[in-house]
């Protein structure tokens, strides 16, 4: 499943990041690495942006970027 497809209140675990190098590095900066738990919080009005809880902070990521993050539900 892709992070961009998760629904509000979903809790998922990052499996793989397939973004290009520059964007992947931005994700690394905010601590978004494989194994990280991500909680999907809320979308913005135009639905191009979604807020997630990542390592205790609330961070919003564009859908066009989060479609490169592969996640799975926490078993």
């Amino acid at each position, binding site marked *: 499943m892709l992070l961009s497809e998760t629904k509000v209140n979903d809790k998922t675990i990052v499996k793989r990041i397939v973004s290009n190098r520059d964007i992947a590095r931005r994700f690394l900066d905010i601590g978004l*690495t494989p194994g990280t738990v991500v909680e999907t919080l*809320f979308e913005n*009005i135009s639905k191009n942006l979604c807020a997630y809880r990542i390592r205790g902070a*609330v961070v*919003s*990521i564009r859908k066009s970027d989060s479609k490169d993050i592969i996640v799975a539900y926490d078993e």
Partner: protein
Amino acid sequence: MMNNKKIALAGNPNVGKSTVFNTLTGLHQHTGNWPGKTVDNKSGFFKDEKTRYEIFDLPGTYSLLAHSEEEENARNFLLFENPDKTIVVCDATSLLRNLNLVLQITEVNKNIVLCLNLMDEAKKKKIDIDLKKLEDILNIPVIPVVAVKKEGITELVKALDEERKVRDQIIYDERIEKCIYKLKQVLKEKELFSLNPRYVAIQLLREDWDLLEEFDKYLGYELLDDDLRDVLNSCLEELEDLDIDLLLVDTINKKASFIYDQVVSHTSKKRSLIDQKIDRIVTNKYLGIPIMLLFLAVIFLITIKLSNYPSNFLYNLFFSFEDDLLLFLEGIHLPSYLVHLLVFGVFRTVMWVVSVMLPPMMIFFPFFTILEDSGYLPRIAFNVDGVFEKCSSCGKQALTMAMGFGCNSVGVSGCKIIDSKRERLIATITNAFVPCNGKFPTIIAIITMFLVGFNTSLKNTFLSAVILLLFTLLGIGMTFLISKILSKTILKGSPSSFVLELPSYRKPQIIKTIITSVLDRTIFVLGRAIVVAIPTGALIYLLANTYVGDATILSICTNFLDPFAKIFGLDGVILMAFILGFPANEIVVPIIIMAYLNTSAMMDYSSLVELKNLLIDNGWTIITAVCTLIFVVLHFPCSTTCLTIYKETKSLKIVLLSIFIPLICGLTLCFIANLFLGIFV
């Protein structure tokens, strides 16, 4: 004899780093460029009994991997300027992410003090941090601080004298560690000065060639000689199957989590629930945008309404000095033409600029800073990002636009918050499309005189508000259009990744806010405005009082411009007034009056009715009014803004683009309006 110590202040963005900096240095600070750096940084100093500390405020960053200019800046300072101590400011309420940066810094610098800011917020959120344990794990002083209340600052200064060095924290994957060891063996033979060999080895494995160049510059010789290259190549071959960047960051993240779990315990989740509730409302599908518009509208209305009083007060105050100044200068026997030039040219222009610019900014910016401090602004960017993504730019541009309503110059310097350089330039160039405070009085006056009428009935007031809004929307619409065009042409590129943090809400510090926004923004902008107002004031006076034959140079210029200006529905006087009004939009109308009345100095009008008669006598029609309105919104930015654009971008090309793009847009729209309205009127 005093010791001198160099202190670096590092930390994530939005952790109160500048508050710590301001509290430490008081007023002993200045904004300046460090040698070879492009981003403005602050430095300052403070003293205790035996030491003079020079402190450098590094740009706020999430990491030191140097993915942005700010990160590169911060990293290079820590690496090459060799600070005696590095204070890492952390947000006690989100220690986990902050620890990442702390751990990364431990790899560069061993002399670290951890400053745990926002301890009061952490307490409120029932986040319990075992300071002693954190101190033991890291082996560095950990100082709890509430910077806005100056709590813990004395202890922080004391900790700068400590000798403890941070314990090595990070152990990477075994294969990477083996390679680091091999590289270190070679590096041992070299003179590395203050560089940490382990750090150098890691960066070689990351194949960060830009940084290698910086190493060479610092060391004065080529680091990567044949020996080192051989070892490095064999290491890279060995690690070929690994994504080294990812592994390094992952190890640091895991270590941060490990430490975090040992020292932090949450006893309640209540506070973050409050945050979530506020977020639900202010980012709501239906409420989000209206709430945002309401906030901004209230601030603008208050600013426009309230600033009249102090403006009039200052104006009268300065005017009362004019005669005294005249008498004084005549008394010291200066030639009378020089006296008049100084008093009616320079003094009157500067006075005018100060009295019309100062009050709105002193009212607007504290309000804006309060919104900023509360944490609401990022939510605005969050709400409106959609339309900006469509223009291949960034939601944070909405914030620089909002600042532009207060003052374009401040809006332009606010563009620093945009990470990608391409998007930052788009926001910079288009900022002047947003009408600033200085334009509103002119816009409102023209609407009242020509479009609505003087009757202040409810209907008329509403009508003028709608027209005002339309012209503001014209500016905003042009911002989007030009952003889109720029990102398809000279600033080509796809939208870069947009990672926007939504920080916890905080209670803003009202008093501190007023002081810093007045110091940082108002005084600063006013200073730049005055610098340009002085020569322009003299120029305006000379043009209006130097006769060639029967006519003043001013009237020769306006007559010359007249045929050209008529194409765009304006006239020579209006166009000339905009050119001479370069230092501040507020003096455009006074110059128009001066030119029409053929007086020797700038004049104000006693009533709008009188002004309207004067304008009509000089050939104004409703078409002139509409075209002038368009031109007020869309022309070149004022001199202060141009200076700021140059300071921020160091590029004349960008300044010229910022001048000509809005000017061409304005003239084009005026031309079209003139043509169309000409058919109907």
